[in-house]
């Protein structure tokens, strides 16, 4: 479903991704792990179309269609969802207004009728309940004054509303206490479906205790240096990333 081949990307002239290859099939959950600065967030950003990243080579296709040529909103319409590491605050715009705008932008695109306020509320309330979110969230300005955990829950809420084909969750587990982590993981698990792919970008193994991945990849210095099953995450948890610097270099080109 998602096919990344030889993806290279730069930020301010500096090459961060140096040839990433990755295939994710529908129905799968993949985890991308790696030390800080390995390019995990850059990968998520490039897939979503963030302009600060300059694509320098390679291809990305979703269901066989080129993704890199599309504007961010077009990727969204195609089914790409990015759960932000740092969700953005928009003062004065209530969560409800934002969620409805996002939902209706998609429905318009698909030629479906827009949801009116009543139908929207019924839908969003149902979803919020599952995430143990208070309804008061709807009437607060988007992410403004939200705690870290509230922001992340809000990202998951948006994901469940938008029902993406490909969900990229960038460090969604960071800054969560154990209860919030459990709720967020529950949200992700609920979205696992045969026609959907989920990519978890994470530094820690913690989230993977709750969301069992089908595949785990280690990103280091802009390349995927190791791939394996769920056991790889456990190993990383035990040994950290340091050992990769030596063990992982066996098949990888030397670093300067």
């Amino acid at each position, binding site marked *: 479903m998602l096919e990344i081949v030889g993806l290279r990307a730069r930020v301010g002239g500096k090459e961060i991704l140096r040839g990433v290859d990755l295939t994710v099939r529908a129905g799968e959950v993949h985890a991308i792990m790696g030390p800080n600065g390995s390019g995990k967030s850059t990968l998520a950003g490039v897939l*979503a179309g963030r*302009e600060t990243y300059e694509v320098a080579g390679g291809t990305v296709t979703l269901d066989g269609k080129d993704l890199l040529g599309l504007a961010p909103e077009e990727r969204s319409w195609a089914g790409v969802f990015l759960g932000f590491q740092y969700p953005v605050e928009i*003062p004065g715009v209530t969560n409800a207004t934002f969620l409805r*705008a996002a939902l209706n932008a998609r429905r318009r695109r698909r030629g479906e009728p827009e949801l009116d306020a009543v139908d929207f509320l019924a839908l969003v309330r149902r979803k919020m309940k599952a995430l143990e979110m208070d309804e008061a969230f709807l009437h607060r300005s988007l992410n403004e004054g939200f705690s870290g955990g509230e922001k992340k829950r809000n990202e998951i809420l948006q994901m469940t509303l938008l029902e993406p084909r490909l969900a990229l969750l960038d460090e969604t587990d960071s800054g969560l206490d154990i209860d919030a982590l459990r709720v967020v993981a529950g949200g992700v698990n609920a979205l696992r479906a045969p026609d959907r792919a989920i990519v978890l970008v994470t530094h820690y193994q913690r989230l993977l205790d709750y969301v069992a991945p089908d595949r785990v990849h280690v990103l280091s210095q802009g390349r995927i240096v190791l791939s394996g099953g769920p056991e790889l995450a456990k190993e990383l948890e035990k040994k950290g990333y340091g050992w990769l610097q030596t063990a992982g270099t066996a098949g990888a080109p030397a670093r300067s």
Partner: protein
Amino acid sequence: MSDAPPRTRDDETLAQATSGEYRWGFVTDIESESPPRGHSEGVVRYVSHKKEEPDWLLDWRLKAYRHWLTMKEPTWPKVTYPPIDYAGIFYYAAPKGTSGKPKSLDEVDPELLKTYEKLGIPLKERAALAGVAVDAVFDSVSVATSYKSKLAELGIVFCSFSEAVREHGDLVRRWLGSVVPSTDNYFATLNSAFFSDGSFVYVPKGVRCPMELSTYFRINAAETGQFERTLIVADEGAYVSYLEGCTAPKRDENQLHAAVVELVALDGAEIKYSTVQNWYPGDKDGRGGIYNFVTKRGACRGRRSKISWTQVETGSAITWKYPSCILQGDESVGEFYSVALANHRQQADTGTKMVHVGRNTRSTIVSKGISAGHGQNTYRGLVRVLKGAEGARNYTQCDSLLMGDRCGAHTFPYVEVRNPTARVEHEASTSKIGEDQIFYCNQRGIPAEDAVNMIVNGFCKEVFRELPMEFAVEAQKLLAVSLEGSVG
């Protein structure tokens, strides 16, 4: 001798239809010519004579004119414009003829028509707004008439200023200049000498005006000219909500607009004055556009009276305007809610003055400035608490939103407190619509322009909710149209 275009038969028909005189069978000497360009006592007399004004009003105008000659144009506003050639202006534009006007919509700038369409203005009204002669204007006569009789039953006077001078001279004489004296400031004084027309409202004791009063319904509003004068008096316990302007960009040949608005609220009275201003802002490079130099002031004369200004200012090349409240009555309340937009090369220097005179007077100021393109937006506000204003309170919130990095936002809050029991609060913020906000919206499938509209509407929410419902909806659309092309 005159530089004015010769008048034709059509001009007269239109002049009659639009001056309000037609309905009342009032005949004037429409054959005579307009005065030449430039100002003089002769021109003041001419204007007054054309309007068949009583002597007291002529004297009032003359006094203003003589004073104006001694005044200097203010230079303190944070705006720049080439010198205005006061000798080159026509000070009395008689109801305009069809000569300079488009004959049909086919002759109107297609860009303007596109804007009307986006704003959802009905077809027949578009023609009138674009300055096309006749039809639509006639259409509204019946609307205006039925509206007026309903008000008359309640004793409410709502008419053009000229008509008020004729029919309600005593009321006009009593209140004219009582809030903005004829010698107040350069532009107000100019207006006092040459004011063309405007609106007059009087709401009698204890009467609550059952509908929003709007100039939109008044057929002669189309020809009020560049020196508009509005006077609204709410007698004891009265209430009135007045809507000024229209969201459609008006076509106008006059570059300088110096209007005066005076409000008087007596004991327990309340006046709500809402403005949507969308005069021609000039093109993207700042050519053309209206200079909107307005003096608006309300006096809360009575105990527990209230005056509330709400404005959405998106038009004009230059805006210079500070709707103010003089809180004289004990426990009187003044409010100012403002959204001012400066896009492209627009410049806005706007804000308010709250002068606390009476005891336990309260004022609220909420100002939202939006700058985009090369726009320069200045908030200038004065909160003055006089010695006797025991227990006065003010809350000021002043927010600026920037789009792009070539525009500017400036804030000049002045606070003068002479009573130690006063409480004055000021909050200010400046934010920028960030790439990250836009990207976040894009990622959720919301295109950039929709995202900007949503963010801007969120920013302006506290002001929009003060507007009457249908005005609020129009104002939102208007902002969207005014900001088009300012992203991406």
